[in-house]
């Protein structure tokens, strides 16, 4: 009886605390993100190339260039101290560079796969070489950043040393809801791109949200329940800020994604042509790692799985870890799962 009374009292206290913290939550500014010190190495319209400052006494010989997904901000990889993939990497002795994207301007509406994979990425790889003084570079791509990295890699097989992809879709027919929503019988992509120029971020945000319509509400209920737990609230707010901070997409790039990748599935069929050159994934022979998430609702396992089979590398490995599309690379689970696995794989290939 007394334990029930104690339980009720503690629940009432928690409810009061939640209300106080709830008020603080709404009154406080958005959390700061991207805290790891960095220098801007190069900027070109929508593209920003950062170099993170080393903290280790000695670093691996081969630097890393991370290519962020074009639809989202790169600070998901550097959310907060202790929750930062970049901070982890530099702490483990890697020299880290990152390609991040800002909203494309009206002038960027004509950017295509060719610009991203034959101009932007090779140019950044060269800048990393010049800045680090090392010819070898490891390229890491996340989601669509992985798709762009794979296309770049197939078209420049001798230009990089290792390739790592996180949740990178290859068979777009297996991204079932996206494929359904962009069904060519109903979706007039030409009309959308011709009338909007760049595709608005609201549309990109809604597409991600619609994949899990109940999750935001359930997340808010969880937040309310954990309002007294500052660590939970800080993490929730940082993720919340990131997930609503989607980027518009360059119009032509979006049109190509829909027509060439989703409608025709050309990357999977090894038929994609970029800048007049066929993208043959078999031409990739560098050591390669592909990490996928078991419960990825954005890039399902079946959509990402064929990548390793396609590439011609003798040294290649795929890993499937528990978690979702974002929790694979960021958050408390990534700290325990992906990051140490990547470190173990990459360390021996970075000397």
């Amino acid at each position: 009886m007394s334990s029930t009374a104690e339980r009720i009292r503690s629940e009432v206290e928690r409810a009061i605390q939640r209300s106080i913290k709830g008020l603080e939550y709404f009154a406080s500014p958005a959390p700061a993100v991207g805290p790891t010190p960095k220098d801007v190495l190069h900027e070109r319209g929508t593209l920003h190339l950062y170099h993170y400052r080393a903290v280790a006494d000695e670093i691996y010989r081969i630097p890393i260039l991370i290519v962020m997904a074009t639809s989202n901000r790169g600070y998901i990889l550097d959310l907060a101290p202790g929750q930062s993939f970049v901070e982890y990497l530099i702490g483990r002795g890697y020299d880290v560079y990152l390609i991040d994207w800002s909203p494309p301007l009206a002038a960027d509406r004509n950017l295509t796969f060719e610009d991203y994979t034959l101009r932007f990425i090779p140019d950044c790889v060269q800048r990393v070489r010049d800045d680090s003084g090392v010819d070898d570079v490891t390229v890491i791509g996340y989601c669509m950043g992985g798709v762009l990295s794979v296309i770049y890699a197939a078209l420049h097989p001798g230009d990089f040393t290792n390739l790592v992809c996180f949740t990178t879709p290859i068979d777009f027919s297996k991204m079932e809801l996206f494929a359904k929503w962009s069904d060519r019988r109903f979706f007039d992509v030409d009309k959308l791109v011709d009338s909007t120029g760049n595709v608005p971020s609201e549309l990109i945000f809604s597409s991600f949200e619609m994949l899990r319509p109940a999750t935001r509400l359930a997340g808010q209920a969880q937040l309310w329940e954990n309002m007294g737990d500052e660590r939970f609230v800080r993490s929730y707010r940082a993720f919340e800020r990131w997930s609503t901070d989607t980027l518009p997409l360059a119009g032509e790039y979006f049109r190509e994604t829909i027509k060439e990748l989703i409608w025709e599935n050309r990357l999977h069929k090894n038929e994609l042509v970029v800048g007049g050159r066929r993208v043959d994934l078999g031409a990739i022979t560098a050591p390669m790692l592909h990490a996928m998430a078991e419960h990825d609702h954005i890039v399902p396992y079946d959509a990402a799985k064929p990548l390793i089979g396609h590439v011609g590398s003798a040294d290649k490995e795929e890993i499937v870890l528990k978690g979702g599309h974002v929790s694979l690379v960021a958050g408390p689970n990534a700290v325990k799962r992906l990051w140490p696995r990547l470190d173990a794989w990459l360390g021996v290939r970075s000397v």
Partner: protein
Amino acid sequence: MGDDKPKDPLALWRDMLAQWETSVNALANKTMATDEYSSSMHGAMGMTLRMQETVREFMAAYLASTNLPSRTEVLGIAERLGAVEARLDRMTELLERIATPAGAPAPSAPAARPPRTKKPPAAEPSA
């Protein structure tokens, strides 16, 4: 029975919430995977685009009549400003390179970096 550990009163709520989330997501995904849904979604999008076009045309005519620049014109100016900034950046980079004696670090280069001698833990000699 009475000696059992007291149950967390919120556990039931958490379970219910998780179940609700899973079932609503599953149901919604099923509905959204139908032709009818795709068709109506794009029908609505087409209507919005047509509406936006009409508003844009109307606003352009209105702004012209009041002697104000339209969005397209402002974006055109922004584009040209962007090009001027990019050219200035390239010129600054070039000037810095010209002004720096051969062999010296570039002025924008950060302080000395650690040596690239790190070996993976397994390859390091044991102490």
